[in-house]
């Protein structure tokens, strides 16, 4: 009884289409029950995330008729009447199992190597398992997929490093400061990226956030969201003494912070290290400040370059990951016969 996969993902379809086919978590057990009671699948797991909607099924039906039935089920479920060409993909063994392993490892994800998908896959599998919609084949395949994901995570660099501007900023801060839990962060200018960066720092334990913005109301709103304190824009320099990390993203057409202004402030700070993250365009911080001792300035291009480098490294790891996955799929689908087993009998995964 082979495993097949049918679905659509960010590779094949836009979000407008994916959302039509998405399953609400509460509706998944019912959908699984329907799949099995209609004889479309003997075992099934439904994975529905913002980037993919997939049905993993083990079925005794021939591949062609299984795919036809699963497709009809999906289309009827999504109440979709528009044209469909290559948006929905069908995979049979061994590609189906290979695909499952790739999804578990984050190789098929939009953000290459991300780990969130593994949690979502585990949750989808647990849901099907709880409602007894899985059996020997899917149980074994999913358990193996989770093991392979663990092996790939520890044995390769596919998940290494940060690929977003916010997380790169956190990594930089961790290379400068002994610990982030007693660091004070100042956000100058309440933009979207600065908010994300501040949130990333807070999630790693940064102690406090001070928000300064030309519009005090916006500063207050963001400070409230971040659990910090808002100050008037003119006051940011007076608060500077205790600040360790500055995230700047104002819309000012000139430098908000330059060398002449920062030099005396550094003396007040007793030359403690200062990380400046300038994500504004045009830039808020004069590049010259990087020449000051204990000052580390990174602008949006520097952060993006680091994130891109990480992504490049992850891409280079894909070949290694795929080789490991192919090997694991081979072992799963064609396990060696245990010694002493009669040559005529088969205890092969999916075909016993």
């Amino acid at each position, binding site marked *: 009884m082979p495993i097949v996969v049918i679905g659509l993902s960010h590779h094949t379809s836009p979000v407008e289409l994916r959302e039509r086919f998405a399953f609400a978590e509460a509706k998944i057990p019912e959908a699984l029950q329907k799949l099995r009671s209609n004889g479309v699948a003997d075992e099934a797991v439904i994975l529905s995330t913002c980037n993919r909607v997939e049905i993993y099924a083990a079925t005794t039906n021939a591949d062609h008729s299984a795919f036809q039935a699963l497709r009809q089920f999906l289309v009827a479920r999504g109440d979709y009447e528009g044209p469909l060409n290559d948006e929905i993909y069908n995979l049979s063994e061994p590609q189906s199992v290979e695909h499952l392993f790739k999804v578990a490892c984050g190789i098929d994800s939009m953000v290459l190597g991300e780990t969130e998908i593994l949690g979502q896959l585990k949750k989808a599998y647990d849901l099907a398992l709880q409602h007894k919609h899985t059996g020997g084949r899917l149980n074994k395949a999913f358990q193996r997929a989770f093991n392979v994901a663990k092996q790939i995570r520890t044995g390769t660099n596919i998940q290494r490093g940060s690929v977003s501007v916010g997380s790169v900023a956190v990594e930089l801060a961790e*290379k*400068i400061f002994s610990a982030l839990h007693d660091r004070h962060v100042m956000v100058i200018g309440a933009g979207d990226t600065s908010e994300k960066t501040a949130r990333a720092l807070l999630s790693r334990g940064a102690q406090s956030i001070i928000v300064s913005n030309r519009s005090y109301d916006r500063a207050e709103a963001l400070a409230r969201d971040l659990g910090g304190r808002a100050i008037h824009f003119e006051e940011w320099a007076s608060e500077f003494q205790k600040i360790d990390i500055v995230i700047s993203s104002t819309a000012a057409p000139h430098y908000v912070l330059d060398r002449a202004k920062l030099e005396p402030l550094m003396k007040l700070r007793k*030359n*403690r*290290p200062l990380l400046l993250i300038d994500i504004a365009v045009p830039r808020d911080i004069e590049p010259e400040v990087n020449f000051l001792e*204990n000052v580390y300035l990174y602008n949006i291009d520097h952060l993006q370059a680091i994130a891109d480098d990480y992504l490049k490294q992850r891409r280079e790891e894909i070949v290694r990951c795929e080789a490991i996955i192919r090997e694991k799929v081979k072992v799963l689908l064609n396990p060696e016969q245990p010694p002493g087993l009669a040559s005529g009998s088969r205890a092969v995964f999916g075909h016993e």
Partner: protein
Amino acid sequence: MVYGLSAIYSVFLWRKGFRQHDRVNYGLLLLAAIFHTTAMFKRGFSFDRCPVNNLYEATLFLLWTIVATYLVVGLWPRLRFLGAFAAPLLFCVGVFALMPGLDNSYGARPEFKHDWVSLHAALILLSYGAFGLSSVAGLMYLTQEHDLKFRKMRAIFSLLPPIQRLELVIGRLMVTGFVLLTAGLVIGAVRLKLPEGVSYFDDPKVHWSILVWLLYLALLIMNWGFAQGGRRFAWGAVGCFLFVLLTFWGVNLMSPIHH
């Protein structure tokens, strides 16, 4: 020779940006330390005293304190990369120790009690070991600080600790070294009686030791009192130890008391 192999291996680790937990380097330094310890024990037992009685032995003792500290610290895998900084230093100083004229035969000076001489020498050499490690931490600081300033990718990839922690390590090792040096010098001045007609104040090594003591005191005061941390402090740690390394042997050879 094993220190040499480790130093060569360290060059590769530097080039890679310390991205690997270098077990090989740790293994090489462990092997070198085993040989080193065995040789020191044999020498100590054959002369029936702590082997710190001439320049050659003093240098080897200094190396031993550095490698022993590294092996303990390196038990934590994340700090094993420190070997890449320690190995070249160990190798260079080790080669220096083999210079002719350093391993002179010696006899006990009857006017000194052996226990105080050994303690005086051991404390001072241990202080140099602490200063040596402080300079190693200083080198790490300068490497990481340079990479962060110039936005090198290896600043993030490397296994080096955050620069703020490195600065703390430099300071603590320097204080340790300073306390040991002070204790060693005080014991030397108070407990070791010189023969008639010989004065401490005529001895170049004593002048040199006071200079080293003052240099480190100045560095610590600058750091504590004037917030001169960061790069300048790291350069100070590296520079002062380099001064000790380059002048230690020469001054010892010039000193009638210590030679």
